[in-house]
Structure formats: structure tokens, C-alpha cells
């Protein structure tokens, strides 16, 4: 029986292969020449988008649609340029093979959006501007958008950092010390599930400034999932790791910081991701109701002026902003949890 277990084990990789660990990935065979349908996809689709744009924009003022034409032309130019570079540079070829289909699809979606809105006018006009209008808003109002993004980033990071710092302390205490669990767990279970946004009225009353209350609310939103997952990760540390450490002469500090916390790391990261999602939501709500800056505020402000192009411009920025932060957290996770097998890719 033992021997079959041995045989079923994956072969031991060489040390060289160990130094760089990769997670499961779709293996794309890399050919020496890219098929035309791959490298032509983006230029072709861009050309189609251009035609649709000319047709859809024929009854709109040129100032509003010109930047989108320029944008498409630039995409067209770059895609041809990269198709040329790819002939001499294999990494670029690999990247293209992976990215071309999805980028072509994205551009097609843009044209579909334009066709439905400014072209066919299927959707009520002022509320649903086409891509040219949104791009134009992005360009004309860039200073204010930049400023708002900056404010949002500041709020988000301060709230998130505060929430995580407090949550790690409370989570480790609740997970490790029995008295802390006895008194802390009920509090966590009762207070934690209240959405942070429900505290908005109270926060406005007790806090000296809207800024403070926003940071506090975001921290609260992050605190609950991170505490919960940290506590459960710590209290579920495999007893035999702790036993081994004790027989190696470990002090209580070693058991907490070098055994329980590393063992809980995968759980802690789940909490960090949940907390990040909650913090985005809370950020936008807090900015909308109290703080007079930031992307959340910008959306409601632009809506007040019925400038829907700007609303969508802010949404585009938000999407890029939030997914960048998410990606950064995934990168940190991959770095910290290299020791884990087959982590999920973002």
C-alpha cells in the first residue's frame, strides 16, 4: 500500500524548478509565427469600430466626437506597430496571443455600445451617452477627476489601513486567547454583520468632520471580515504544528507570531479581500452622503448637473481604480503565500 502512495505522488521537481513557483495556468503553445486572425483581430475590429463611429456620429457636433476618432486611430496604429514588433520579439508574441482576443472583444463592445446609444438611439439619450461623449468628459474634466481620484485613494487607504491594523490585533486576540474569545466573539457576531453604511447617521453626529467619519466607516467595514477570518484562521491552527513548535522550545510569542499567524495567512487574505470589497462600497456611500470630494461625490455631483457623460467617466475611473487596488492585493498575496500550492490567479 505504501508503494502505491509513493507512485501516485507527483515527481519531485529539481531545485531549479522550485525557485520559481507558478500556479495552474492555461498553457498556450507558442508558435513561431502568429496566425493572421490573431494579430489582425485588433486592427480589424478597430477599423469596424471606426466605420460604426462615422455612421453614428454623423448627426453630432464634431467637437464632441473628434477625440474618440483620434483614440481609435491611435489604437489602430499601436496594434499594427505591435504586430510588427511581435515578429522579432517572442515575449511580445506570447503576450499578444493571450491578449488580442480579449482586446478585440472589448473594442467590439465599445462599438456595440455606440451603435445602440448615439447610432440607433434605442436608449433615452441624455442618460446613456456613447463612448465618444464619455471620452470627451474624461478629457475636459480631467483635473477635477484626477483630484477626486486622489481624494478617494487617500480616504480608502487610510480607512483600509486603520481597519486592517485594528482587525489583525483583535482577530489574533480572539483567535488565540480564550477569555478574549469568550467576551469578544459575541460582540463580533452581533455588531459585525451590520453594514458599515448603516452607521452613517450616527457617524455624522459623533465625528468632528465628515472626513473622520468616512475613514472610521471604511475601517469598520474592513474590520469585521478581517477580524472574523483572522480569528478563525488562528484558532484553527493545526494542533500538531503547535506541538512540534513546543517541543522545539518555542515561547508563546513564537507560537503566535511564527506558527499561528503564518498558518492563518491564507484565511487572513480571504478576510483582506472581503474587507477590500466592503471598503469600496463604504467609500462610495460615505463620499456621496458626507464628504464633498472623491469619486463617489463626483458621480452625484455630475448627476445633479445632468452631465451623464461625466457620471460614466467617473465610473470608468472607479473601475480602473478599484481593479488596480485589487490586483495589487493579489500580487501581495501571491508573494506572501508562495508556499501554498495552486493559488488562484486574478
Amino acid at each position, binding site marked *: 500500500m*505504501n*508503494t502505491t*502512495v*509513493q507512485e501516485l*505522488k507527483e515527481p*519531485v*521537481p529539481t*531545485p531549479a524548478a*522550485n*525557485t520559481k*513557483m507558478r500556479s495552474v495556468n492555461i498553457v498556450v503553445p507558442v508558435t513561431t509565427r502568429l496566425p493572421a486572425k490573431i494579430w489582425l483581430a485588433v486592427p480589424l475590429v478597430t477599423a469596424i469600430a471606426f466605420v460604426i463611429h462615422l455612421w453614428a456620429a454623423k448627426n453630432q457636433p464634431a467637437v464632441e466626437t473628434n477625440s474618440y476618432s483620434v483614440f481609435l486611430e491611435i489604437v489602430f496604429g499601436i496594434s499594427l506597430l505591435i504586430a510588427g514588433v511581435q515578429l522579432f520579439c517572442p515575449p511580445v508574441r506570447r503576450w499578444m496571443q493571450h491578449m488580442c482576443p480579449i482586446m478585440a472583444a472589448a473594442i467590439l463592445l465599445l462599438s456595440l455600445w455606440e451603435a445602440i446609444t448615439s447610432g440607433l438611439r434605442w436608449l433615452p439619450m441624455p442618460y446613456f451617452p456613447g463612448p465618444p461623449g464619455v471620452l470627451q468628459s474624461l478629457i475636459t474634466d480631467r483635473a477635477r477627476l484626477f483630484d477626486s481620484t486622489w481624494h478617494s485613494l487617500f480616504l480608502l487607504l487610510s480607512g483600509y489601513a486603520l481597519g486592517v491594523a485594528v482587525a489583525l490585533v483583535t482577530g489574533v486576540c480572539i483567535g488565540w486567547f480564550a477569555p478574549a474569545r469568550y467576551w469578544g466573539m459575541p460582540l463580533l457576531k452581533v455588531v459585525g454583520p451590520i453594514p458599515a453604511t448603516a452607521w452613517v447617521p450616527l457617524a455624522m453626529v459623533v465625528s468632528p468632520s465628515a472626513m473622520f467619519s468616512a475613514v472610521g466607516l471604511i475601517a469598520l467595514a474592513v474590520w469585521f471580515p478581517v477580524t472574523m477570518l483572522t480569528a478563525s484562521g488562528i484558532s484553527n491552527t*493545526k494542533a*500538531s*504544528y503547535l*506541538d*512540534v*513548535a*513546543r*517541543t*522545539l*522550545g*518555542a*515561547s508563546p510569542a*513564537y507560537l503566535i507570531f*511564527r*506558527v499561528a499567524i*503564518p*498558518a492563518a*495567512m491564507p484565511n487572513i487574505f480571504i478576510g483582506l479581500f472581503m474587507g477590500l470589497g466592503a471598503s469600496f462600497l463604504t467609500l462610495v456611500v460615505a463620499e456621496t452622503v458626507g464628504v464633498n470630494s472623491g469619486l463617489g461625490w463626483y458621480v452625484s455631483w455630475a448627476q445633479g448637473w445632468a452631465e451623464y457623460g461625466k457620471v460614466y467617466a467617473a465610473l470608468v475611473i472607479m473601475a480602473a481604480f478599484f481593479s488596480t487596488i485589487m490586483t495589487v492585493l493579489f500580487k501581495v498575496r501571491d508573494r506572501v503565500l*508562495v*508556499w*501554498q*500550492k495552486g493559488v488562484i490567479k486574478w
Partner: protein
Amino acid sequence: MTEGASLRIASVNKDFAKANDVEARTIALHDVSLSIAAGELVSLIGPSGCGKSTLLRLTAGLDTPNSGELWIGPEMITGPNAERGLVFQDPNLFPWLTVRRNIESGLVARGKLQEKRHEVDEFMRLVGLETFENAYPHHLSGGMAQRVALARALINHPKVLLLDEPLGALDAFTRMRMQDEVLRLWQARGTTMLLVTHDIDEAIYMSDRIVIMTPRPGRIERTIPITLERPRQRNSPEFLQLRGEILEMLHFAGEARSAEV
């Protein structure tokens, strides 16, 4: 050179609450007494559930007996300590540390890493894993992981090494090689060793004495000294004869008990 210390287990009793009934107790160890000299290698064998692991955990200080005492040399055992190393059947390497850091962890835990860093390389060579120092445990085969676990336990130079079926999960070839490695270390260091095994050949090949335990309640049935000369031949007539005798005893012990099951 003898790093080992004598171990004395005096009338130890240990029971546990049964999982399905709070009132009832499982008697894991009943009046167990055993003395092991410094530098001796003793094997514990016996059917599953006879309290071998419980006895090892008590010796390691991870559990406390209901009554009775355990002594290391002149000191009574009150809790876990780096002078008593324990290797489990499952290597239990810390998966978040590389091979090197796993082996170092005993030094880190005692704040001795600066002082004794050179020994880490020594142990890595000893167990033949220099080329894997930066690999993470999930990249290792079962035999390699067990060797790392052994090195990790040895780096603190324990006076007593407790081995709970450390080679149980290995295939026959790796197991025999590891037995020789453990013997080599034992002879070089003079560490006192208490080895739990299910493999009678292993017990005869390795130990100075074999202690046979029986379950319900867990207690020591008898002790058999092994006086064969070292290095031992696994297929010598004396070896095979001893093996036959022990098998007979165990069979006998097994039959007498099986009626109770």
C-alpha cells in the same frame, strides 16, 4: 560522546473522556513504569490504541498524566522543552517555511540562530538535502520530508529523542536507509531514543530493548532485551529466530485480548 539523558517513567496513569459519553473514561495508560538508561535505544510496539503515542506525548510534556511521574535525569517533566525532541508519523513541516528555515526553526525558537548557524548546514548535509534548501515542503517526497523533520528535531541536540512511527509512511527501501541514518546519528550522539513502531524487523534491527504494550487498558506487557551485535544483519539466523519468537509472543498476546474486542 553521550548527549543523552536517562528517562524514568514511574507508575503513570492517563485517561481521556470518551468522545460520545462525558462520564465514561478511556484508560489510555494504566500504571506504566519504564526506565531507560542514558544513550539507550528502546522500541515500543503493540496494537493500535495501546497508548504508545500517549506515552510519547507525556514524555514530551505535551500532556500531563493523571497520576505518576516522569523524570529526565534528575528533573521532573512538567512541560514541553527543547531537550526532548519529538518526530511524528506525519512530518508536520511548517509549510510556510523553506527546508532550511524549517530546520532552523528550533534555533530560532530558542534565540540561538546567530550562535549556531553553522550547524544548519551540517544538518542539511547530514540528511542529504543541501540542494533542496530553498524548496517548500509541498515539493518534497515523503522520505525527504521525514528527513527534514528528523533534522529539525536534532538541531536542538535533544537529550531524549521521541520517535512516533517516524518511518511508517515510507516505502521499504527508503525505510531501511532511514533506519541506518537514525542509527548512525544515535551512535554518533549517544542520544537516548524512544521509538514507536509497528514493524517488528525495525524494532529488532534498531533497539537495545523492545517494550511490548497491550491495550484496554494500555500497559506494558513485557520487555525483551536485544543482545545481537551491531551492525545487525537483517537475515542472520539469530535475527530471524528472534523475530519468530516475538511474532509468537505478539500473536499470543493478540489472541488473548481479541476476545474482549
